[in-house]
């Protein structure tokens, strides 16, 4: 393990203090939002109130207002539909691409991978104008499907890049062994490589979904009727009328979306960090344990001595690492 436990008590105290301070800093906006969403108007506009306590009774009226009198639920549905569609498109295109780049193209794979990643750096602000023209030409303006078409443009480069890393960390020998045992390349990939790269695939799904939720400029440029807006664009459009900010509802809308996403991230964050971990053998075995599946995968034991191969490669790599 690279991150060693600090030995001294003082070192530990320092690290924990730092961590707690950072957590408070990061968590503060959420605390603020959570408090504000229950605040009564009279409390909110009282300049002498203590911002950290509710000086009047908590009220749910702004939340019910948000849910009943604004198309907020419609925004969420739009977001989910767009997100799922984009995830499917992204995986369908970036999985084969990442596999090919990681395994089949040799030295050029790496370079092309970087080139693909660099396209992710071309900002949406540059692209939204020409794309808006394009969207109008194909008649998708004002529809959530315009976003489904456009979002893969930035999710695929990122996903391909991430998946390349995950797929490369799967030992070649395992797939080759499956091929020796009579599977086609495709069959071998589906049965051995993909299950091992599952944590990576899930990470990519979460990332893609969150990216589609974060986008602002495309959604703003392509969609103007509130029935097809997403949360990020719809909420400010509906809840900021002129100079009046409906703070409680705004905060509620942010919390309602952010909390599930934050929980989701928490679940998958550990797996994401494993990818960044340089010890690749350890990364896989741990990730595999994490996914709840037994190694070697059940059902493969009889047909392939994958477990034996696994042990051999592990021993081999340990040997080279030691020397």
């Amino acid at each position, binding site marked *: 393990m690279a991150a060693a436990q600090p030995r001294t008590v003082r070192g530990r105290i320092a690290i924990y203090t730092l961590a707690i301070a950072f957590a408070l800093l990061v968590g503060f906006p959420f605390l603020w939002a959570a408090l504000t969403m229950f605040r009564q108007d009279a409390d909110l506009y009282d300049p002498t109130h203590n911002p950290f306590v509710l000086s009047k009774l908590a009220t749910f009226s702004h939340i019910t207002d948000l849910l009943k009198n604004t198309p907020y639920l419609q925004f969420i549905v739009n977001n989910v539909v767009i997100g799922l569609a984009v995830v499917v498109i992204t995986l369908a295109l970036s999985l084969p691409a990442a596999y090919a780049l990681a395994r089949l193209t040799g030295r050029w794979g790496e370079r092309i991978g970087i080139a693909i990643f*660099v396209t992710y*750096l071309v*900002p*949406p*602000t*540059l692209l*939204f*104008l*020409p794309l*808006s*023209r394009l969207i109008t030409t194909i008649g998708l303006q004002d529809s959530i499907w315009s976003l489904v078409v456009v979002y893969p443009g930035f999710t695929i480069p990122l996903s391909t890049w991430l998946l390349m890393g995950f797929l490369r960390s799967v030992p070649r020998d395992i797939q080759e062994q499956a091929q020796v045992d009579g599977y086609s390349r495709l069959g071998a990939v589906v049965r051995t490589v993909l299950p091992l790269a599952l944590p990576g695939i899930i990470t990519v799904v979460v990332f893609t979904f969150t990216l589609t939720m974060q986008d*602002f*400029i495309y959604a*703003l*440029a392509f969609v103007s009727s509130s029935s097809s807006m997403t949360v*990020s664009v719809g909420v*400010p459009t509906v809840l*900021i009328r002129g100079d009046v900010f409906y703070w409680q509802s705004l905060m509620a809308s942010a919390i309602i979306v952010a909390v599930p996403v934050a929980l989701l991230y928490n679940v998958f964050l550990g797996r994401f960090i494993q990818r960044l971990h340089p010890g690749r053998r350890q990364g896989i075995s741990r990730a595999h344990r994490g996914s709840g599946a037994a190694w070697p995968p059940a059902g493969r034991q009889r047909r392939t001595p994958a477990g034996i191969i696994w042990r051999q490669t592990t021993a081999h790599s340990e040997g080279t690492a030691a020397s």
Partner: protein
Amino acid sequence: MALLFRIVFTFTDMAAVFVLTGGGPGNATQVLASWAFYKGINGGNLAVGAADALIMFPVLLGLAAILLRIASRAEVG
């Protein structure tokens, strides 16, 4: 790498401007990215908006090239 990301995305972020000030008062808080939107989509003047957006491109390209070079040098060293 993270720095590169931050710079590029901060440079091109227009959501904060759009939501908080709408570019106002006047055009005092307008950035290149939000101005491209106001001209190109809201104003209907696609050419001006596109030109505005393209101005950002060489700046970002240069920045990305420099940072990528630094990053790759750090990896080798």
